[in-house]
Protein backbone atom coordinates (compact mmCIF):
# COMPACT_ATOMS: atom_id res chain seq x y z
CA UNK A 1 0.00 0.00 0.00
CA UNK A 2 1.33 3.41 -0.91
CA UNK A 3 1.10 5.81 2.01
CA UNK A 4 -0.20 9.25 1.16
CA UNK A 5 -0.62 12.36 3.27
CA UNK A 6 -3.36 13.63 0.99
CA UNK A 7 -6.96 13.49 2.05
CA UNK A 8 -9.83 13.23 -0.40
CA UNK A 9 -12.03 16.34 -0.18
CA UNK A 10 -9.67 17.39 2.62
CA UNK A 11 -11.29 14.94 5.05
CA UNK A 12 -11.15 11.32 3.83
CA UNK A 13 -7.98 9.57 5.00
CA UNK A 14 -6.86 7.56 1.98
CA UNK A 15 -4.71 5.29 4.14
CA UNK A 16 -7.72 4.09 6.13
CA UNK A 17 -8.31 0.33 5.83
CA UNK A 18 -10.61 -2.17 7.47
CA UNK A 19 -9.45 -5.75 7.13
CA UNK A 20 -12.35 -8.05 6.37
CA UNK A 21 -10.19 -11.17 6.64
CA UNK A 22 -9.29 -10.47 10.26
CA UNK A 23 -12.48 -12.32 11.13
CA UNK A 24 -11.56 -16.00 11.37
CA UNK A 25 -14.73 -17.39 9.73
CA UNK A 26 -14.27 -15.02 6.76
CA UNK A 27 -10.64 -16.03 6.31
CA UNK A 28 -11.52 -19.71 6.70
CA UNK A 29 -14.20 -19.49 4.01
CA UNK A 30 -11.93 -17.63 1.62
CA UNK A 31 -9.06 -20.05 2.22
CA UNK A 32 -11.23 -23.05 1.51
CA UNK A 33 -10.80 -24.53 -1.95
CA UNK A 34 -14.58 -24.40 -2.30
CA UNK A 35 -14.08 -20.68 -2.76
CA UNK A 36 -14.39 -19.52 -5.44
CA UNK A 37 -15.26 -22.91 -6.96
CA UNK A 38 -18.81 -22.90 -5.59
CA UNK A 39 -19.85 -19.51 -7.03
CA UNK A 40 -18.11 -20.49 -10.29
CA UNK A 41 -20.13 -23.72 -10.52
CA UNK A 42 -23.32 -21.83 -9.70
CA UNK A 43 -22.54 -19.31 -12.42
CA UNK A 44 -21.67 -22.11 -14.81
CA UNK A 45 -25.15 -23.54 -14.26
CA UNK A 46 -26.73 -20.12 -14.88
CA UNK A 47 -24.66 -19.59 -18.03
CA UNK A 48 -25.59 -23.02 -19.39
CA UNK A 49 -29.23 -21.91 -19.16
CA UNK A 50 -28.30 -18.55 -20.69
CA UNK A 51 -26.56 -20.27 -23.60
CA UNK A 52 -29.44 -22.69 -24.16
CA UNK A 53 -32.01 -19.90 -24.00
CA UNK A 54 -29.92 -17.70 -26.30
CA UNK A 55 -29.48 -20.57 -28.78
CA UNK A 56 -33.12 -21.58 -28.83
CA UNK A 57 -34.23 -17.92 -28.91
CA UNK A 58 -32.62 -17.54 -32.32
CA UNK A 59 -33.40 -14.26 -34.03
CA UNK A 60 -36.58 -13.46 -32.13
CA UNK A 61 -37.05 -10.21 -30.20
CA UNK A 62 -34.94 -10.55 -27.10
CA UNK A 63 -37.03 -8.77 -24.49
CA UNK A 64 -38.62 -12.02 -23.36
CA UNK A 65 -35.45 -14.09 -23.67
CA UNK A 66 -33.64 -15.32 -20.56
CA UNK A 67 -30.20 -15.03 -22.19
CA UNK A 68 -30.66 -11.43 -23.30
CA UNK A 69 -32.32 -10.25 -20.11
CA UNK A 70 -29.94 -11.90 -17.64
CA UNK A 71 -26.80 -10.89 -19.54
CA UNK A 72 -27.65 -7.37 -20.68
CA UNK A 73 -30.03 -6.19 -17.98
CA UNK A 74 -29.18 -8.09 -14.79
CA UNK A 75 -25.50 -8.95 -15.20
CA UNK A 76 -24.42 -5.70 -16.84
CA UNK A 77 -26.26 -3.52 -14.36
CA UNK A 78 -25.00 -5.57 -11.38
CA UNK A 79 -21.48 -5.29 -12.75
CA UNK A 80 -21.54 -1.54 -13.22
CA UNK A 81 -23.60 -0.56 -10.21
CA UNK A 82 -22.48 -2.98 -7.52
CA UNK A 83 -19.80 -5.53 -8.32
CA UNK A 84 -17.05 -3.35 -9.77
CA UNK A 85 -17.45 -0.21 -7.62
CA UNK A 86 -18.12 -2.24 -4.50
CA UNK A 87 -16.23 -5.50 -4.82
CA UNK A 88 -13.58 -4.76 -7.42
CA UNK A 89 -13.12 -7.74 -9.75
CA UNK A 90 -15.38 -10.06 -7.80
CA UNK A 91 -17.00 -11.02 -11.11
CA UNK A 92 -13.63 -12.33 -12.37
CA UNK A 93 -13.43 -14.40 -9.19
CA UNK A 94 -16.71 -16.17 -10.01
CA UNK A 95 -16.58 -16.00 -13.82
CA UNK A 96 -17.26 -19.47 -15.25
CA UNK A 97 -15.63 -18.92 -18.64
CA UNK A 98 -12.04 -19.91 -17.76
CA UNK A 99 -13.02 -23.01 -15.77
CA UNK A 100 -12.39 -25.32 -18.73
CA UNK A 101 -8.90 -24.03 -19.43
CA UNK A 102 -8.10 -24.06 -15.70
CA UNK A 103 -9.23 -27.68 -15.61
CA UNK A 104 -7.20 -28.56 -18.66
CA UNK A 105 -4.08 -26.89 -17.26
CA UNK A 106 -4.43 -28.27 -13.76
CA UNK A 107 -6.08 -31.62 -14.60
CA UNK A 108 -7.89 -31.08 -11.31
CA UNK A 109 -10.95 -29.05 -10.53
CA UNK A 110 -10.80 -29.01 -6.75
CA UNK A 111 -7.42 -30.16 -5.42
CA UNK A 112 -4.09 -28.50 -6.10
CA UNK A 113 -1.78 -29.90 -8.72
CA UNK A 114 1.79 -29.18 -7.74
CA UNK A 115 4.52 -28.86 -10.35
CA UNK A 116 4.25 -27.79 -13.95
CA UNK A 117 0.81 -27.04 -15.31
CA UNK A 118 -0.49 -28.65 -18.47
CA UNK A 119 -0.88 -26.97 -21.86
CA UNK A 120 1.80 -25.36 -24.00
CA UNK A 121 2.41 -22.66 -21.40
CA UNK A 122 3.70 -20.07 -23.88
CA UNK A 123 4.36 -16.61 -22.57
CA UNK A 124 2.22 -13.78 -23.91
CA UNK A 125 4.30 -11.28 -25.96
CA UNK A 126 5.69 -8.55 -23.75
CA UNK A 127 4.66 -5.82 -26.19
CA UNK A 128 1.03 -6.90 -25.84
CA UNK A 129 1.16 -7.22 -22.05
CA UNK A 130 -1.15 -4.27 -21.50
CA UNK A 131 -4.73 -3.22 -22.15
CA UNK A 132 -4.45 -2.41 -25.84
CA UNK A 133 -5.75 -5.74 -27.16
CA UNK A 134 -8.64 -5.60 -24.69
CA UNK A 135 -9.34 -2.00 -25.71
CA UNK A 136 -9.69 -3.00 -29.33
CA UNK A 137 -11.54 -6.24 -28.47
CA UNK A 138 -14.09 -4.36 -26.41
CA UNK A 139 -14.54 -1.61 -28.96
CA UNK A 140 -15.00 -4.15 -31.77
CA UNK A 141 -17.50 -6.04 -29.61
CA UNK A 142 -19.55 -2.87 -29.24
CA UNK A 143 -19.79 -2.60 -33.04
CA UNK A 144 -22.25 -5.49 -32.72
CA UNK A 145 -24.18 -4.17 -29.73
CA UNK A 146 -27.19 -3.45 -31.95
CA UNK A 147 -27.44 -7.22 -32.51
CA UNK A 148 -26.02 -8.72 -29.33
CA UNK A 149 -28.26 -6.91 -26.90
CA UNK A 150 -31.47 -7.68 -28.79
CA UNK A 151 -31.00 -10.97 -30.68
CA UNK A 152 -30.59 -14.08 -28.52
CA UNK A 153 -28.51 -15.92 -31.09
CA UNK A 154 -26.05 -13.01 -31.35
CA UNK A 155 -25.55 -13.18 -27.58
CA UNK A 156 -25.00 -16.93 -27.94
CA UNK A 157 -22.30 -16.32 -30.54
CA UNK A 158 -20.57 -13.67 -28.39
CA UNK A 159 -20.55 -15.88 -25.29
CA UNK A 160 -19.45 -18.84 -27.40
CA UNK A 161 -16.49 -16.90 -28.79
CA UNK A 162 -15.44 -15.80 -25.30
CA UNK A 163 -15.75 -19.32 -23.82
CA UNK A 164 -13.96 -20.95 -26.74
CA UNK A 165 -11.33 -18.18 -26.79
CA UNK A 166 -10.64 -18.61 -23.07
CA UNK A 167 -10.24 -22.38 -23.56
CA UNK A 168 -7.95 -22.24 -26.60
CA UNK A 169 -5.79 -19.42 -25.22
CA UNK A 170 -5.56 -21.35 -21.94
CA UNK A 171 -4.20 -24.38 -23.79
CA UNK A 172 -1.59 -22.35 -25.64
CA UNK A 173 -0.56 -19.64 -23.18
CA UNK A 174 0.22 -19.84 -19.50
CA UNK A 175 -2.35 -19.56 -16.73
CA UNK A 176 -4.99 -16.80 -17.09
CA UNK A 177 -3.41 -15.03 -20.09
CA UNK A 178 -6.86 -14.74 -21.68
CA UNK A 179 -8.33 -12.96 -18.65
CA UNK A 180 -5.30 -10.71 -18.34
CA UNK A 181 -4.85 -9.52 -21.88
CA UNK A 182 -7.74 -10.61 -24.12
CA UNK A 183 -11.12 -10.83 -22.44
CA UNK A 184 -13.26 -7.88 -23.59
CA UNK A 185 -15.02 -7.77 -20.23
CA UNK A 186 -11.78 -7.79 -18.27
CA UNK A 187 -10.41 -4.44 -19.42
CA UNK A 188 -13.11 -2.13 -18.12
CA UNK A 189 -13.38 -4.12 -14.91
CA UNK A 190 -9.66 -3.69 -14.37
CA UNK A 191 -9.89 0.02 -15.09
CA UNK A 192 -12.90 0.76 -12.91
CA UNK A 193 -11.81 -1.62 -10.12
CA UNK A 194 -9.25 1.05 -9.28
CA UNK A 195 -12.19 2.94 -7.82
CA UNK A 196 -13.48 -0.08 -5.88
CA UNK A 197 -13.95 -0.05 -2.11
CA UNK A 198 -12.30 -3.46 -1.73
CA UNK A 199 -8.74 -4.62 -2.33
CA UNK A 200 -6.50 -7.68 -1.95
CA UNK A 201 -3.19 -6.61 -0.41
CA UNK A 202 -0.36 -7.94 1.71
CA UNK A 203 -0.38 -6.90 5.34
CA UNK A 204 3.22 -6.71 6.54
CA UNK A 205 5.98 -6.06 4.01
CA UNK A 206 8.69 -7.40 6.34
CA UNK A 207 7.07 -10.83 6.37
CA UNK A 208 6.96 -10.93 2.56
CA UNK A 209 10.49 -9.57 2.25
CA UNK A 210 11.94 -12.42 4.26
CA UNK A 211 9.70 -15.12 2.82
CA UNK A 212 11.36 -17.25 0.16
CA UNK A 213 10.22 -18.67 -2.11
CA UNK A 214 7.26 -16.32 -2.52
CA UNK A 215 4.50 -18.92 -2.42
CA UNK A 216 1.87 -16.41 -3.55
CA UNK A 217 3.74 -16.32 -6.86
CA UNK A 218 5.03 -19.87 -7.21
CA UNK A 219 2.26 -21.71 -5.36
CA UNK A 220 2.41 -24.59 -2.88
CA UNK A 221 0.32 -27.55 -1.81
CA UNK A 222 -2.46 -25.23 -0.63
CA UNK A 223 -2.95 -23.29 -3.82
CA UNK A 224 -1.63 -22.16 -7.17
CA UNK A 225 0.87 -19.41 -7.79
CA UNK A 226 -0.99 -16.28 -8.89
CA UNK A 227 -2.99 -17.39 -11.97
CA UNK A 228 -2.98 -13.75 -13.07
CA UNK A 229 0.82 -13.85 -13.26
CA UNK A 230 1.11 -11.06 -10.69
CA UNK A 231 3.21 -10.80 -7.57
CA UNK A 232 0.55 -10.48 -4.86
CA UNK A 233 3.14 -9.61 -2.20
CA UNK A 234 3.68 -6.43 -4.15
CA UNK A 235 0.12 -5.49 -5.19
CA UNK A 236 -0.39 -1.74 -5.31
CA UNK A 237 -3.60 -1.52 -7.32
CA UNK A 238 -6.56 -3.66 -8.31
CA UNK A 239 -6.25 -3.43 -12.09
CA UNK A 240 -4.90 -6.90 -12.77
CA UNK A 241 -5.94 -8.73 -9.61
CA UNK A 242 -8.70 -11.20 -10.51
CA UNK A 243 -9.49 -11.83 -6.82
CA UNK A 244 -9.07 -15.58 -7.36
CA UNK A 245 -8.10 -15.91 -3.67
CA UNK A 246 -5.15 -18.25 -4.40
CA UNK A 247 -2.71 -15.93 -2.60
CA UNK A 248 -4.79 -16.11 0.56
CA UNK A 249 -4.48 -19.89 0.40
CA UNK A 250 -0.78 -20.09 -0.42
CA UNK A 251 0.52 -17.60 2.15
CA UNK A 252 1.68 -19.64 5.16
CA UNK A 253 1.69 -16.52 7.33
CA UNK A 254 -1.84 -15.34 6.54
CA UNK A 255 -0.18 -12.16 5.42
CA UNK A 256 -2.60 -11.49 2.55
CA UNK A 257 -5.75 -9.57 3.38
CA UNK A 258 -8.96 -8.34 1.83
CA UNK A 259 -9.57 -4.78 2.96
CA UNK A 260 -12.34 -2.25 2.78
CA UNK A 261 -10.96 1.13 1.75
CA UNK A 262 -12.01 4.59 0.54
CA UNK A 263 -13.10 4.50 -3.11
CA UNK A 264 -10.56 5.40 -5.75
CA UNK A 265 -7.33 5.06 -3.81
CA UNK A 266 -5.62 3.29 -6.72
CA UNK A 267 -5.99 6.34 -8.95
CA UNK A 268 -3.01 7.87 -7.19
CA UNK A 269 -0.79 4.79 -7.50
CA UNK A 270 2.21 5.20 -9.77
CA UNK A 271 4.90 2.57 -9.41
CA UNK A 272 7.47 1.06 -11.69
CA UNK A 273 5.71 -2.29 -11.60
CA UNK A 274 2.26 -0.80 -12.05
CA UNK A 275 2.75 2.44 -13.95
CA UNK A 276 0.03 4.70 -15.27
CA UNK A 277 -0.11 4.07 -19.00
CA UNK A 278 -1.67 5.23 -22.25
CA UNK A 279 -3.43 1.86 -22.56
CA UNK A 280 -5.41 2.53 -19.38
CA UNK A 281 -5.96 6.15 -20.41
CA UNK A 282 -7.42 5.05 -23.73
CA UNK A 283 -9.59 2.50 -21.95
CA UNK A 284 -11.03 5.40 -19.94
CA UNK A 285 -11.67 7.42 -23.13
CA UNK A 286 -13.24 4.46 -24.91
CA UNK A 287 -15.57 3.73 -22.00
CA UNK A 288 -16.68 7.35 -21.82
CA UNK A 289 -17.20 7.56 -25.58
CA UNK A 290 -19.11 4.28 -25.75
CA UNK A 291 -21.45 5.57 -23.04
CA UNK A 292 -22.29 8.59 -25.22
CA UNK A 293 -22.78 6.53 -28.39
CA UNK A 294 -24.85 3.90 -26.57
CA UNK A 295 -27.03 6.59 -25.03
CA UNK A 296 -27.69 8.18 -28.40
CA UNK A 297 -28.46 4.79 -29.95
CA UNK A 298 -30.41 3.01 -27.22
CA UNK A 299 -31.95 5.66 -25.00
CA UNK A 300 -32.33 8.53 -27.44
CA UNK A 301 -35.18 9.32 -29.85
CA UNK A 302 -33.07 9.42 -33.02
CA UNK A 303 -34.45 6.71 -35.31
CA UNK A 304 -31.91 7.21 -38.07
CA UNK A 305 -29.11 6.41 -35.63
CA UNK A 306 -30.90 3.28 -34.43
CA UNK A 307 -31.18 2.17 -38.05
CA UNK A 308 -27.43 2.64 -38.44
CA UNK A 309 -26.61 0.69 -35.26
CA UNK A 310 -28.89 -2.23 -36.10
CA UNK A 311 -27.56 -2.48 -39.63
CA UNK A 312 -30.79 -1.61 -41.47
CA UNK A 313 -28.56 -0.77 -44.44
CA UNK A 314 -24.92 -1.72 -45.01
CA UNK A 315 -23.70 1.84 -45.72
CA UNK A 316 -25.48 3.06 -42.57
CA UNK A 317 -23.92 0.31 -40.49
CA UNK A 318 -20.45 0.98 -41.86
CA UNK A 319 -21.01 4.66 -41.13
CA UNK A 320 -21.86 3.79 -37.54
CA UNK A 321 -18.70 1.70 -37.15
CA UNK A 322 -16.58 4.51 -38.64
CA UNK A 323 -18.19 7.14 -36.39
CA UNK A 324 -18.04 4.93 -33.31
CA UNK A 325 -14.36 4.08 -33.78
CA UNK A 326 -13.31 7.63 -34.67
CA UNK A 327 -15.28 9.17 -31.82
CA UNK A 328 -13.84 6.82 -29.21
CA UNK A 329 -10.28 6.42 -30.42
CA UNK A 330 -9.61 9.93 -31.69
CA UNK A 331 -12.20 12.59 -30.88
CA UNK A 332 -12.62 12.04 -27.13
CA UNK A 333 -8.86 11.62 -26.55
CA UNK A 334 -8.25 14.59 -28.87
CA UNK A 335 -10.53 16.89 -26.88
CA UNK A 336 -8.93 15.71 -23.64
CA UNK A 337 -5.49 16.32 -25.15
CA UNK A 338 -6.40 19.98 -25.72
CA UNK A 339 -7.26 20.38 -22.03
CA UNK A 340 -4.09 18.51 -20.97
CA UNK A 341 -2.09 20.86 -23.21
CA UNK A 342 -3.83 23.87 -21.64
CA UNK A 343 -2.99 22.43 -18.23
CA UNK A 344 0.70 22.31 -19.11
CA UNK A 345 0.66 25.80 -20.60
CA UNK A 346 -1.24 27.33 -17.72
CA UNK A 347 0.91 25.61 -15.09
CA UNK A 348 4.06 27.09 -16.59
CA UNK A 349 5.85 23.81 -15.90
CA UNK A 350 8.54 22.81 -18.35
CA UNK A 351 9.80 19.65 -16.61
CA UNK A 352 6.80 17.35 -16.79
CA UNK A 353 6.10 15.89 -20.20
CA UNK A 354 2.77 16.51 -21.90
CA UNK A 355 2.37 12.72 -22.17
CA UNK A 356 2.60 12.37 -18.37
CA UNK A 357 0.07 15.16 -17.84
CA UNK A 358 -2.27 13.65 -20.44
CA UNK A 359 -1.96 10.12 -19.08
CA UNK A 360 -2.17 10.90 -15.38
CA UNK A 361 -5.12 13.27 -15.62
CA UNK A 362 -6.96 10.68 -17.73
CA UNK A 363 -7.41 8.76 -14.46
CA UNK A 364 -9.98 11.38 -13.41
CA UNK A 365 -12.19 9.79 -16.06
CA UNK A 366 -12.37 6.58 -14.03
CA UNK A 367 -14.81 7.95 -11.39
CA UNK A 368 -16.43 10.07 -14.10
CA UNK A 369 -16.92 7.08 -16.40
CA UNK A 370 -18.17 4.86 -13.61
CA UNK A 371 -20.79 7.48 -12.69
CA UNK A 372 -21.83 7.81 -16.30
CA UNK A 373 -22.24 4.03 -16.69
CA UNK A 374 -24.19 3.85 -13.45
CA UNK A 375 -26.53 6.53 -14.76
CA UNK A 376 -26.85 4.68 -18.06
CA UNK A 377 -27.54 1.43 -16.20
CA UNK A 378 -30.35 3.06 -14.20
CA UNK A 379 -31.87 4.00 -17.57
CA UNK A 380 -31.81 0.32 -18.59
CA UNK A 381 -32.85 -1.27 -15.32
CA UNK A 382 -35.87 0.79 -14.24
CA UNK A 383 -37.83 0.58 -17.51
CA UNK A 384 -36.85 -3.02 -18.36
CA UNK A 385 -36.15 -4.79 -15.06
CA UNK A 386 -39.61 -6.36 -14.91
CA UNK A 387 -38.77 -8.55 -17.91
CA UNK A 388 -36.36 -10.41 -15.64
CA UNK A 389 -39.15 -11.66 -13.35
CA UNK A 390 -40.92 -13.06 -16.35
CA UNK A 391 -37.97 -14.86 -17.93
CA UNK A 392 -36.93 -16.37 -14.60
CA UNK A 393 -40.16 -18.35 -14.58
CA UNK A 394 -40.05 -19.26 -18.25
CA UNK A 395 -36.41 -19.20 -19.38
CA UNK A 396 -36.94 -20.97 -22.71
CA UNK A 397 -40.33 -19.43 -23.54
CA UNK A 398 -41.84 -22.92 -23.40
CA UNK A 399 -44.85 -21.87 -21.34
CA UNK A 400 -43.30 -22.74 -17.96
CA UNK A 401 -44.19 -20.84 -14.79
CA UNK A 402 -41.50 -21.96 -12.33
CA UNK A 403 -41.87 -19.16 -9.79
CA UNK A 404 -45.35 -17.92 -10.65
CA UNK A 405 -44.03 -14.78 -12.33
CA UNK A 406 -44.37 -15.80 -15.98
CA UNK A 407 -47.47 -13.70 -16.54
CA UNK A 408 -46.14 -10.47 -14.98
CA UNK A 409 -46.57 -7.80 -17.63
CA UNK A 410 -43.85 -5.37 -18.63
CA UNK A 411 -43.95 -2.75 -15.86
CA UNK A 412 -41.51 0.16 -15.83
CA UNK A 413 -40.58 1.12 -12.27
CA UNK A 414 -39.77 4.56 -10.81
CA UNK A 415 -39.26 6.05 -14.26
CA UNK A 416 -40.68 9.35 -12.99
CA UNK A 417 -37.67 9.86 -10.73
CA UNK A 418 -35.16 8.24 -13.07
CA UNK A 419 -33.76 11.60 -14.18
CA UNK A 420 -33.22 12.69 -10.58
CA UNK A 421 -31.39 9.45 -9.82
CA UNK A 422 -29.20 9.79 -12.89
CA UNK A 423 -28.45 13.45 -12.17
CA UNK A 424 -27.59 12.75 -8.53
CA UNK A 425 -25.27 9.86 -9.47
CA UNK A 426 -23.51 12.08 -12.02
CA UNK A 427 -22.95 14.89 -9.49
CA UNK A 428 -21.55 12.51 -6.86
CA UNK A 429 -19.08 10.95 -9.27
CA UNK A 430 -18.23 14.36 -10.73
CA UNK A 431 -17.24 15.37 -7.18
CA UNK A 432 -15.02 12.28 -6.91
CA UNK A 433 -13.43 13.08 -10.28
CA UNK A 434 -12.75 16.65 -9.16
CA UNK A 435 -11.40 15.52 -5.78
CA UNK A 436 -9.01 13.03 -7.35
CA UNK A 437 -8.20 15.47 -10.15
CA UNK A 438 -6.80 17.87 -7.61
CA UNK A 439 -4.76 15.15 -5.87
CA UNK A 440 -3.42 14.05 -9.26
CA UNK A 441 -2.52 17.66 -10.08
CA UNK A 442 -0.45 17.81 -6.91
CA UNK A 443 1.26 14.55 -7.93
CA UNK A 444 1.98 15.74 -11.45
CA UNK A 445 3.23 19.21 -10.60
CA UNK A 446 5.63 19.30 -7.68
CA UNK A 447 5.09 23.03 -7.22
CA UNK A 448 1.78 23.93 -5.51
CA UNK A 449 1.18 27.04 -7.63
CA UNK A 450 1.74 25.08 -10.84
CA UNK A 451 -0.62 22.39 -9.58
CA UNK A 452 -3.33 24.96 -8.92
CA UNK A 453 -3.02 26.55 -12.34
CA UNK A 454 -2.64 23.20 -14.10
CA UNK A 455 -5.77 21.83 -12.44
CA UNK A 456 -8.11 24.51 -13.79
CA UNK A 457 -8.36 23.19 -17.40
CA UNK A 458 -8.98 19.65 -16.14
CA UNK A 459 -11.70 20.93 -13.80
CA UNK A 460 -13.20 22.72 -16.81
CA UNK A 461 -13.14 19.53 -18.89
CA UNK A 462 -14.77 17.48 -16.11
CA UNK A 463 -17.46 20.14 -15.68
CA UNK A 464 -18.19 20.23 -19.41
CA UNK A 465 -18.36 16.46 -19.75
CA UNK A 466 -20.72 16.30 -16.75
CA UNK A 467 -22.95 18.94 -18.36
CA UNK A 468 -22.96 16.92 -21.60
CA UNK A 469 -24.16 13.82 -19.76
CA UNK A 470 -26.70 15.82 -17.77
CA UNK A 471 -28.11 17.04 -21.05
CA UNK A 472 -28.23 13.45 -22.33
CA UNK A 473 -29.86 12.07 -19.18
CA UNK A 474 -32.32 14.84 -18.28
CA UNK A 475 -32.00 17.59 -20.92
Amino acid sequence: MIETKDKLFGVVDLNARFELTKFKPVRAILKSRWMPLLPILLNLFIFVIILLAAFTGGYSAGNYNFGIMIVWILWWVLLMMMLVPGLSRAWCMMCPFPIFSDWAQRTKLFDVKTGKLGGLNFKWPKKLSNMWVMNIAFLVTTFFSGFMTVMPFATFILLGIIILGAFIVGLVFEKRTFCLYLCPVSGFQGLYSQFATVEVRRKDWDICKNHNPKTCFVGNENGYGCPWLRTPFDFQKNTYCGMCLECLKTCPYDNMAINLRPPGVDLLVETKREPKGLDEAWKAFIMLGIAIVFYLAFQGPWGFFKDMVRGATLPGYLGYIAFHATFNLLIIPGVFFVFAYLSKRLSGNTDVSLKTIFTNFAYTLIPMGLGVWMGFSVGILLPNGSYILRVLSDPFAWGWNLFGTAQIPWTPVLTGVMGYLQGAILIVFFAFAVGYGWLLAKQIYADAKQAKRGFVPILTFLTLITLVFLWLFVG
Partner: protein
Amino acid sequence: MMRKKVVLFATAALGGLCILIALVGIATPAAAESPRERFFEIHAKRFDYTPGTIQVNQGDKVTVRLISEDVSHGLYLDGYEIKTSAHPGEEGTLTFVADKTGRYTFRCATTCGEFHPYMVGYLNVEPNSRLWIFALLTVGVALCSAVIVLR
Protein backbone atom coordinates in the same frame (compact mmCIF):
# COMPACT_ATOMS: atom_id res chain seq x y z
CA MET B 1 -2.87 39.93 -4.03
CA MET B 2 -5.97 42.04 -3.37
CA ARG B 3 -7.16 41.43 -6.92
CA LYS B 4 -6.74 37.66 -6.51
CA LYS B 5 -8.79 37.76 -3.31
CA VAL B 6 -11.57 39.68 -5.05
CA VAL B 7 -11.62 37.20 -7.96
CA LEU B 8 -11.71 34.24 -5.57
CA PHE B 9 -14.45 35.83 -3.49
CA ALA B 10 -16.50 36.57 -6.60
CA THR B 11 -16.00 32.99 -7.86
CA ALA B 12 -16.99 31.51 -4.50
CA ALA B 13 -20.05 33.77 -4.34
CA LEU B 14 -21.05 32.74 -7.86
CA GLY B 15 -20.55 29.05 -7.04
CA GLY B 16 -22.53 29.38 -3.83
CA LEU B 17 -25.27 31.24 -5.68
CA CYS B 18 -25.49 28.46 -8.30
CA ILE B 19 -25.87 25.82 -5.57
CA LEU B 20 -28.39 27.99 -3.70
CA ILE B 21 -30.51 28.57 -6.79
CA ALA B 22 -30.38 24.84 -7.54
CA LEU B 23 -31.50 23.93 -4.01
CA VAL B 24 -34.26 26.53 -4.07
CA GLY B 25 -35.26 25.18 -7.49
CA ILE B 26 -35.69 21.69 -6.01
CA ALA B 27 -38.03 23.02 -3.33
CA THR B 28 -39.99 25.50 -5.45
CA PRO B 29 -42.28 24.51 -8.29
CA ALA B 30 -41.44 26.47 -11.41
CA ALA B 31 -43.91 29.01 -12.78
CA ALA B 32 -45.58 27.90 -15.97
CA GLU B 33 -47.18 29.74 -18.89
CA SER B 34 -50.99 29.69 -19.04
CA PRO B 35 -52.15 26.17 -19.97
CA ARG B 36 -53.30 25.35 -23.50
CA GLU B 37 -54.74 22.38 -25.29
CA ARG B 38 -52.12 20.63 -27.40
CA PHE B 39 -52.62 17.96 -30.07
CA PHE B 40 -49.88 15.74 -31.44
CA GLU B 41 -49.96 13.10 -34.12
CA ILE B 42 -47.17 10.60 -33.53
CA HIS B 43 -46.37 8.12 -36.27
CA ALA B 44 -44.82 4.87 -35.08
CA LYS B 45 -42.69 2.79 -37.39
CA ARG B 46 -40.19 0.11 -36.40
CA PHE B 47 -38.24 1.41 -34.29
CA ASP B 48 -38.88 5.10 -34.40
CA TYR B 49 -41.48 7.70 -33.46
CA THR B 50 -42.08 10.73 -35.67
CA PRO B 51 -41.80 13.29 -34.21
CA GLY B 52 -39.30 11.80 -31.76
CA THR B 53 -39.59 14.72 -29.36
CA ILE B 54 -42.68 16.69 -28.40
CA GLN B 55 -42.61 19.88 -26.37
CA VAL B 56 -45.37 21.22 -24.10
CA ASN B 57 -45.68 23.57 -21.15
CA GLN B 58 -46.61 22.59 -17.64
CA GLY B 59 -50.37 22.48 -17.23
CA ASP B 60 -51.11 21.93 -20.93
CA LYS B 61 -53.82 19.43 -21.74
CA VAL B 62 -52.10 17.08 -24.16
CA THR B 63 -53.77 14.72 -26.60
CA VAL B 64 -51.60 12.25 -28.52
CA ARG B 65 -52.85 10.38 -31.56
CA LEU B 66 -50.69 7.33 -32.12
CA ILE B 67 -50.67 6.02 -35.69
CA SER B 68 -48.92 2.81 -36.62
CA GLU B 69 -47.30 2.68 -40.04
CA ASP B 70 -46.31 -0.99 -39.99
CA VAL B 71 -46.89 -3.44 -37.12
CA SER B 72 -48.61 -2.96 -33.74
CA HIS B 73 -46.91 -0.42 -31.50
CA GLY B 74 -47.54 1.05 -28.09
CA LEU B 75 -46.71 4.25 -26.28
CA TYR B 76 -45.96 4.20 -22.56
CA LEU B 77 -45.15 7.53 -20.94
CA ASP B 78 -42.58 7.39 -18.14
CA GLY B 79 -43.47 9.34 -15.01
CA TYR B 80 -47.12 9.67 -16.01
CA GLU B 81 -47.46 5.88 -16.21
CA ILE B 82 -50.13 5.91 -18.91
CA LYS B 83 -50.17 4.06 -22.19
CA THR B 84 -51.97 3.44 -25.42
CA SER B 85 -51.45 1.18 -28.39
CA ALA B 86 -52.00 1.37 -32.12
CA HIS B 87 -52.37 -1.31 -34.74
CA PRO B 88 -52.24 -0.96 -38.52
CA GLY B 89 -55.46 0.87 -39.41
CA GLU B 90 -56.40 1.37 -35.76
CA GLU B 91 -55.20 4.47 -33.95
CA GLY B 92 -54.50 4.89 -30.27
CA THR B 93 -55.22 8.00 -28.22
CA LEU B 94 -53.79 9.35 -25.01
CA THR B 95 -55.01 12.43 -23.16
CA PHE B 96 -53.37 13.82 -20.04
CA VAL B 97 -52.54 17.06 -18.26
CA ALA B 98 -48.79 17.72 -18.35
CA ASP B 99 -48.52 18.57 -14.67
CA LYS B 100 -45.02 17.19 -14.12
CA THR B 101 -42.13 19.19 -15.52
CA GLY B 102 -38.97 17.81 -17.06
CA ARG B 103 -38.12 15.37 -19.79
CA TYR B 104 -39.97 12.08 -19.85
CA THR B 105 -39.28 9.18 -22.15
CA PHE B 106 -42.13 7.55 -23.98
CA ARG B 107 -41.42 4.03 -25.12
CA CYS B 108 -43.03 1.33 -27.19
CA ALA B 109 -45.26 -0.86 -25.03
CA THR B 110 -46.03 -3.59 -27.56
CA THR B 111 -43.23 -5.92 -28.67
CA CYS B 112 -42.70 -4.85 -32.26
CA GLY B 113 -39.42 -6.52 -33.23
CA GLU B 114 -35.87 -7.02 -32.04
CA PHE B 115 -35.14 -3.32 -31.38
CA HIS B 116 -38.39 -2.82 -29.51
CA PRO B 117 -36.84 -1.99 -26.09
CA TYR B 118 -34.92 0.87 -27.73
CA MET B 119 -37.93 2.42 -29.49
CA VAL B 120 -38.27 5.64 -27.51
CA GLY B 121 -39.18 9.31 -27.83
CA TYR B 122 -39.11 12.29 -25.49
CA LEU B 123 -41.83 14.46 -23.99
CA ASN B 124 -40.39 17.76 -22.78
CA VAL B 125 -42.59 19.53 -20.27
CA GLU B 126 -41.23 23.05 -19.88
CA PRO B 127 -39.78 24.49 -17.77
CA ASN B 128 -37.26 21.64 -17.46
CA SER B 129 -36.16 22.64 -13.98
CA ARG B 130 -34.47 19.26 -13.42
CA LEU B 131 -31.82 20.00 -16.03
CA TRP B 132 -31.18 23.50 -14.70
CA ILE B 133 -31.02 22.34 -11.10
CA PHE B 134 -28.40 19.72 -11.88
CA ALA B 135 -26.50 22.01 -14.25
CA LEU B 136 -26.35 24.75 -11.62
CA LEU B 137 -25.26 22.23 -8.99
CA THR B 138 -22.47 21.04 -11.29
CA VAL B 139 -21.26 24.56 -12.05
CA GLY B 140 -21.58 25.47 -8.37
CA VAL B 141 -19.51 22.48 -7.28
CA ALA B 142 -16.92 23.30 -9.96
CA LEU B 143 -16.63 26.97 -8.94
CA CYS B 144 -16.43 26.18 -5.23
CA SER B 145 -13.81 23.51 -5.93
CA ALA B 146 -11.80 26.02 -7.93
CA VAL B 147 -11.91 28.48 -5.04
CA ILE B 148 -10.93 25.84 -2.47
CA VAL B 149 -7.99 24.80 -4.62
CA LEU B 150 -6.82 28.24 -5.68
CA ARG B 151 -7.21 30.10 -2.38
